[in-house]
């Protein structure tokens, strides 16, 4: 490791951002890079632990201590090689990952974690800048054909791994652009889309073929693919949103987040969006306190909402977790996203009772306060409504961001007839990634349920390994 006492000498420094008032004026990313010197110093804080908990905290098992050290020593090119050995798309995770690695950083026990995410971000940006990211073209072709259905992070990771080992890979995407959730779920101010495009160039050069507006199960018959390809990977994500069936749900102005966010991304990409659903001049209520909720907040603010309020059903988490009991796991604690910083009201332990409207148009939202307590018998948290706590707030636009229950089960899944697990996801284990149907594999949210991009990448990589082994009898791909 670079500096034995680095963690004692250097404070954690995170990159600054443009102030909210300025950044809400546009849709670009707004974080300000650290100087190279400062960043390398941040690398010196890494203690090169005998057991790097960060590595297991990270779903793709990034070999974090190794590249922290390389960064400290300014050996950027080796750092990106190490980084790429576990992660196909560090430019995505370096921006939008919540960084469970930092939660499990040993320094996080009683101090402040290494800025792992920012270091990752910088390594890969530097690599692109310097032209170190090049296609890795398979030396031999295997002649095997694999179709990947869904071009989100899981599908892309799987496709890249398979292409590099010599298989012919075709990606089917129902939308007009490749990238899935990366493209249309995540606002540009969190991750600009040209990052995806340049990665796609690399994949293309490595031999991956992209077919957009091919909605397998709708306009492409899944059985045909099964006949044509040696293996199919289902990586269509978990797109069935959780609904809120309360009175007034049908009113105009109550929308799922995923009806709202993609339109803005398309617009930023230059598309014409007739009748775009916008928050401009509206009182917006976002229901759901997660990442998607935040994305709705940030987008609404940029669109010029009159007010933005965000409700969360769960109680307000503590400011600081009990680290001796939570570390190295992801702790529940109060977090404020950059979008929330940009100006929104947050309220916790709020249950929505009804949407109230006039003329079919949403006007108000009625909610009450709830209380959470642990059931002494089952040990599970139980919710009770607090009597007399009912209140109403004005609302012109309600965005439902309460998560996704499982993949869309009609169409593709139905046609293939793959078995589903108890939660309605495609059933497959994390060794073989095989579904109940021969030759059909599944990875990412479609298999594991809604999750992080970094998990999708992990599953895509591991699934590729399983597919390679299935096709070839053995595999050299890493897990």
């Amino acid at each position: 490791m670079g500096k034995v006492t680095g963690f004692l000498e250097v404070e954690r420094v995170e990159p600054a951002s443009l102030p909210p008032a300025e950044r809400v004026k546009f849709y670009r990313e707004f974080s300000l890079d650290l100087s190279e010197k400062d960043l390398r110093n941040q690398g010196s804080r890494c203690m090169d632990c005998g057991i790097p908990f960060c590595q297991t905290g990270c779903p793709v098992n990034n070999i974090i201590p190794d590249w922290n050290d390389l960064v400290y020593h300014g050996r950027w090119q080796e750092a990106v090689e190490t980084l790429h050995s576990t992660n196909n798309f560090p430019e995505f995770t370096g921006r939008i990952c919540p960084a469970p690695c930092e939660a499990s950083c040993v320094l996080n026990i009683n101090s402040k974690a290494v800025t792992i995410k920012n270091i990752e971000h910088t390594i890969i940006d530097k690599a692109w800048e310097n032209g170190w990211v090049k296609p890795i073209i398979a030396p031999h072709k295997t002649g095997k054909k694999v179709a990947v259905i869904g071009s989100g992070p899981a599908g892309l990771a799987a496709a890249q791994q398979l292409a590099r080992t010599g298989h012919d890979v075709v990606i089917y995407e129902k939308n007009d652009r490749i990238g899935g959730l990366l493209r249309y779920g995540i606002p540009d101010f969190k991750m600009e889309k040209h990052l995806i495009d340049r990665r796609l160039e690399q994949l293309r050069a490595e031999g991956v073929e992209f077919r957009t507006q091919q909605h397998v199960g709708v306009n492409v018959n899944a059985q045909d693919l099964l006949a044509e390809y040696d293996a199919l990977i289902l990586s269509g994500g978990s797109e069935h949103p959780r609904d809120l069936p309360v009175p007034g749900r049908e009113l105009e102005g109550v929308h799922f987040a995923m009806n709202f966010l993609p339109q803005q991304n398309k617009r930023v990409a230059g598309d014409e969006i007739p009748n775009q659903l916008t928050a401009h001049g509206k009182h917006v209520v976002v229901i759901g306190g997660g990442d998607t909720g935040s994305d709705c907040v940030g987008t609404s603010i940029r669109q010029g909402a009159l007010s933005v309020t965000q409700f969360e059903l769960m109680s307000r988490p503590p400011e600081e977790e009990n680290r001796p009991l939570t570390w190295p796991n992801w702790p529940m604690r109060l977090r404020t996203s950059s979008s929330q910083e940009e100006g929104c009201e947050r309220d916790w332990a709020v249950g929505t009772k009804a949407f109230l409207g006039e003329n079919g148009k949403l006007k108000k939202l009625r909610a009450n306060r709830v209380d959470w307590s642990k059931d002494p018998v089952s040990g599970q948290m139980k919710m009770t409504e607090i009597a007399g706590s009912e209140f109403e707030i004005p609302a012109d636009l309600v965005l439902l961001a309460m998560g996704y229950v499982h993949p869309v089960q009609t169409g593709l899944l139905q046609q293939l007839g793959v078995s589903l697990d108890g939660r309605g996801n495609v059933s497959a284990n994390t060794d073989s990634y095989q579904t109940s149907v021969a030759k059909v594999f599944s990875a990412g949210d479609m298999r594991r349920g809604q999750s992080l991009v970094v998990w999708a990448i992990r599953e895509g990589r591991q699934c590729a390994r399983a597919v390679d082994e299935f096709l070839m009898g053995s595999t050299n791909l890493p897990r």
Partner: protein
Amino acid sequence: MNHLTLPPKQGLYDPKHEHDACGVGFVANIHGKKSHQLVEQGLKILENLTHRGAVGADPLAGDGAGILIQMPDSFLRDHTQKLGFSLPPAGEYGVGSVFLPQDPIERQTVEKLFAQMVQEEGQTLLGWRDVPVDSSGLGESVKKVEPFIRQIFVGRGATTADQQSFERKLFVIRKRVEHGVTALELNQGSMFYVPSFSSRTLIYKGMLLAHQVGEFYLDLRDPSMVTALALVHQRFSTNTFPTWDLAHPFRMIAHNGEINTLRGNVNWMAARRHALSSVALGDDLKKLWPLIDEGQSDSASFDNALELLVAGGYPLAQAMTLLIPEAWAGNPLMDEERRAYYEYHAALMEPWDGPAAVAFTDGRQIGATLDRNGLRPARYQLTKDGTILMASEMGVLDFPQDQIIKKWRLQPGKMLLIDLEEGRIIDDAELKRTLAQEHPYREWLAKTQLRLEELPPASQQAPENVRSTLLDRQQAFGFTQEDLKFLMTPMAATGQEAIGSMGDDTPLAVLSNKPRPLYQYFRQLFAQVTNPPIDPIREELVMSLVSFLGPRPNLLAVDTQNPQPRLEVHQPVLSIEDMEKIRSIHDLTQGTFRSTELSICFSANSGAKGMETALKAVCAEAESKVGEGFNVIILSDRAVSESMAPIPALLATAAVHHHLVQTGLRTSAGLVIETGSAREVHHFACLAGYGAEAIHPYLAFETIGDMGEYLPADLEHYEACKRFIKAVSKGLLKVMSKMGISTYQSYCGAQIFEAVGLNSEFVSHYFRGTSSNVEGIGLTEVAEEVLRLHRIAYSDAPLYRDSLDPGGDYAYRIRGEAHMWTPESISKLQNATRTGSFSTYKEYAKAINTQATELLTLRGLFEIRKVAEPIPLSEVESAKEIVKRFATGAMSLGSISHEAHSTLAIAMNRMGGKSNTGEGGEDPIRFKPMESGDSMRSAIKQVAAGRFGVTTEYLVNADDLQIKMAQGAKPGEGGQLPGHKVSKYIAKIRHSVPGVGLISPPPHHDIYSIEDLAQLIHDLKNVNPRARVSVKLVSEVGVGTVAAGVSKAHADHVTISGHDGGTGASPLSSVKFAGSPWELGLAETQQTLVLNQLRSRICVQADGQMKTGRDVVIAALLGADEFGFATAPLVVQGCIMMRKCHLNTCPVGIATQDPELIKRFAGQPEHVINFFFFVAEEVREYMAQMGFRTFDEMIGRADMLDTRQGVEHWKAKGLDFSRIFYRPSVPAGTSLRWTDRQDHGLDKALDHTLIAAAEPALERKEPVQISTTIRNLNRTFGAMLSGEVAKRYGHAGLPEDTIHVKVSGIAGQSFGAFLAHGISLELQGEANDYVGKGLSGGRIVIYPPSECPIKPEDNIIVGNTVLYGAINGEAYFRGVAGERFAVRNSGATAVVEGVGDHGCEYMTGGTVVVLGQSGRNFAAGMSGGVAYVLDEAGDFAHRCNLAMVELEPVPAEASLTDGDELESHGKVDVKHLGTEDAVLLKRLIENHARYTGSSRAREILDRWNEMLPRFVKVMPMEYRRALQELAAEHAAGLSSAAVQ
């Protein structure tokens, strides 16, 4: 040869691990005057050495004793006359002392064989005589195996020219009879043995106690039995299977010590079989083979070798110098001729290395020699009438003091020889001078000696491997990223081996899923108890890495005028240039040497069969090349490529080495290994241990060349390689020294390893003689490992396309090696103990116990049987009781913070378990209970080699006193606490100076043997009779035998540690490759103790990566009563296995002394208690399933263990644990656990009288005067009294001189040990070893009796290792002290009139004044304190080790300041800074004169102004710096506030 009564190999017990040590002595009349008195005196010596022997379970069964005398001609003449045959003149007949089978028919068969051989060798059988014995006093176990003892009489044949030839013939006859009896395979063949067969000497010996020799052999009582010399020996065997034949003396020697390199020595003797020829022996030479029988003791084998050399024509003394040479290589003081003598002979014979005091005789001369380290005591006295007495200690014979004219000692490497025919003593100088001038050795050397480094460079370059990239080849040899990062980079950058911390929690090689290099199946052996490790840094002068590459000269070419050329290297790691010289050696030496290169690669697609074929071919080729006259064989794996895979270099080396040994050609050629595989110290050690005389690690050098920026920018490749070689060399010295081996030549081929995970077929074929106890993989799997690596190297796998395998051995990596401590297991354990959740604990335990996906430990493959009807959990012994069996491991304050240390102590005290101080003392504040009712007192007080903080007060505040013989992470090695870690607090507890580094020596300097250990146990028991004395050992093959010895040495408790235990800092190769798992060591210990009936006396504890209840249960079933945990409780306290303990940066405040980091410590006693109760609860669940209600029932029930079924692991499936689960069949009622107490014999201590007499002082501080007499049997005088003082008055003790004891006589060992403040011992007489050990404030004064005519300053007054670990106090000795005077002195003041070698070694404080000669290596490792040495000859600087000290004059001081600080009481000796040196020195000499009446002191004082300039002040550099800092601080007024 089978030994009488030695049980056969069974389970893990193997008789080959027997060790012994002992008391040895002789008495002789130098004028050759024979008398019966000498026989009686010999027997008397034996009786007075009784405490150096031991008894086993049967109190009447000794370990063996005997006596060697000159041929008692008239006695025998009388007795044979009565039998009807008469003897020719003395010298013309020989007598054999013969042990025969009791069975008359078998006896006759043997006797007939004798008759036949006597006749065939042209001699005359005169007759037989029954030796009359009285066996009434023998124990039952001894009687059962008593042989029929007869003497055979043989007359010199007509064709035998002279007595010398006759002796040779008798030797030949004996060997032929021995071989003949072995071939006969008699039922009682094991009873047969020939103690002596000579025309000059006769031996009486047996499985006897010391006093029984004279009682058993009636002959010895006969007044007509006369001799001019009597050589006696009393044995202390580790096991209680002593046998009649293993008793000493042997035919020519009696030995106190141990030959560490035995395996190699025996192999090398066998190896030269065909290269030997002898003028003296002629064709008879062939009849002697096998010269050394397999399975003999080291001493017996040594005796065989000596016999051969003498028979071959060497004079006795010369033969001894061949076998046990002085340390000549690193000795600048040795004169040229003598050095040439040794250097010349070095090529003939590798040293028989190990601690040894050997007394030898051929009946005409008698003498003794000491090994180069001087690790055994040997003192002698000469009387006016010419009687010389030599013995391990003095006081064994009472000569009137007025008759004694010389008292001296044998010095390291020196020899004492008495020629009875010439009637004089030949001292070492004369003897060696005569030997050295016998031949023109310097000329011969100049003519024959070729040093590789001095040869001109070779013209050609190394062949480049163009077919494979560096990465491919690195991968083919299994290089990992960690090899480069953790191992090679520090070596190449700094010339040092890398340091790491915490233990090894990765799987053994055989359990790993990854292909591992063959090296990793070999575990380094190390010295513990029966022989000491060496300090290769501080005692470098005895070490040598010189290696001979070419053929060895004919050992028996005694009088050659035409010596053979020899090729040598100063160390065995060949640089690129050196290797090219070897390749071109033919040209460079004009054909004297011819090298040939054999490839050890095989076709990768030919698989395991192909590898085997290639191996055979290499062996055959080597044989034929030697036949063709090539005398340097190079085994090379350079040809590795996509199609060719390398045979593991270790396998190829061992195979070729053994093949050449077996064909008797090995000494005709040197073996050089050119391999890509060797990259860390352990690899080189393995290659050396299996026969490589030199090693060229070409790929390591290439790798270093490719490291680029990882190395300092200005480091040239040549220099980096040089540093790498230096690091390997240092590492080799360390590996050798941890076994106590000093020379590479002896280490080479000595096979100081045990194999773990290799099957016996494979081992016996290629690594013959190596122990392997759990079976495992064979050739097929070894080949598979090679081929897997080869496939990785040449595949397209993305992970390996651009980079090496991550490794993951030293730091956890997802893609790396498996570990027991993982993020999951650590976080589960911490969570469970912090929340008190047993269910979370069970998730943790499951992760550790089941090892479902990755095998981690041997015990992971065990199955615990269940009974059909388990008992209810409620009926099982409570957890509250079980936790009392738990202890935390020895972790010193220093290695961990006070907070972590005391939290453990509080937790253990609350639950009735025990915590351990570790090395380094304990703050006396902790001895008193806290206000809360808790206690921070550690129940176990460790006594380690450094003896830091081991005060009498510390010892009396203990429940257990643990003697740390070894530590799992680095057995056989010392330690070092660097100065920056010695804070004021730590310094206070360790009685040292803040900021001054503290070195712990590898050995305890008072334990070089088993009887020394018994002595230390006795010492500690005296100080604190209520405490259990424990001995901590580390698991290795043979540890069971050592444990048996420990039990016989009266330890109450023994700990068997696994190799995998933690450490605060250790070389990485030691963490990984030394020692074995506790499953093996514990099982061997249990089996051996039970087999010996010694188990009941001793409590057995197991530790090493103990983590769960299942671990405890398995240890209990294998025989443990108690259990130690170290890492797991640390993890509970917050440790997250940073493995950075050695860097002082522990981020959780545990392994650090940094106050900022300590603030982060979050451990709580409650968490620790939760952990131990969880473990106990888990234990109870297993007990219920096994049907055990009490823990005691479970101990030793290995029958409840089985091998886990269905393990299909490609390597582990070959393991066989039957030897671990073995239970020896023993008589009913034999205890399997600790049930009894040891008898320490404390009731006999003189101290009881002292304590009674000192009552007024002890109770009321009233001064008392006591007088008493003393003799050598009265050991540890004053310690028990001191314990009483310390119990009452702590370390401060009583006022000066409150108890004054006047003693006269020759004191036994450890006189004044741990003497407390307020006690003065004044001894008129002399003392043996260990005077003032651990001196804790008392005063010791020793001077010779006034009637003794010797000149005190030229005679010895005290023995070796005086004032070892002294804390403070004073000592004045009128006379010379032995070796290692004031070693590890922390603060005592001493005046002495001369010292032996290694004076003031490792000293950290105090003042030593030497008023005479000092030996070599003075002040080695001395970091503190000051010595003033009178250097009249002006040559002291040559004998002083100047690595850490500077020499300066003692500044004259005019003003006499008021000095109340003459006695240092742990205070900072600011006086040492130079302002008051002369005052101090003068006062001490005045004290000396006053207390001892020293005339020497008087003379010096009388001529003070003239003498003062002749004193040299020895000043440690670090100490001076620290004193200056303290003085500055003091001046700034900070001192008093900060030192608290």
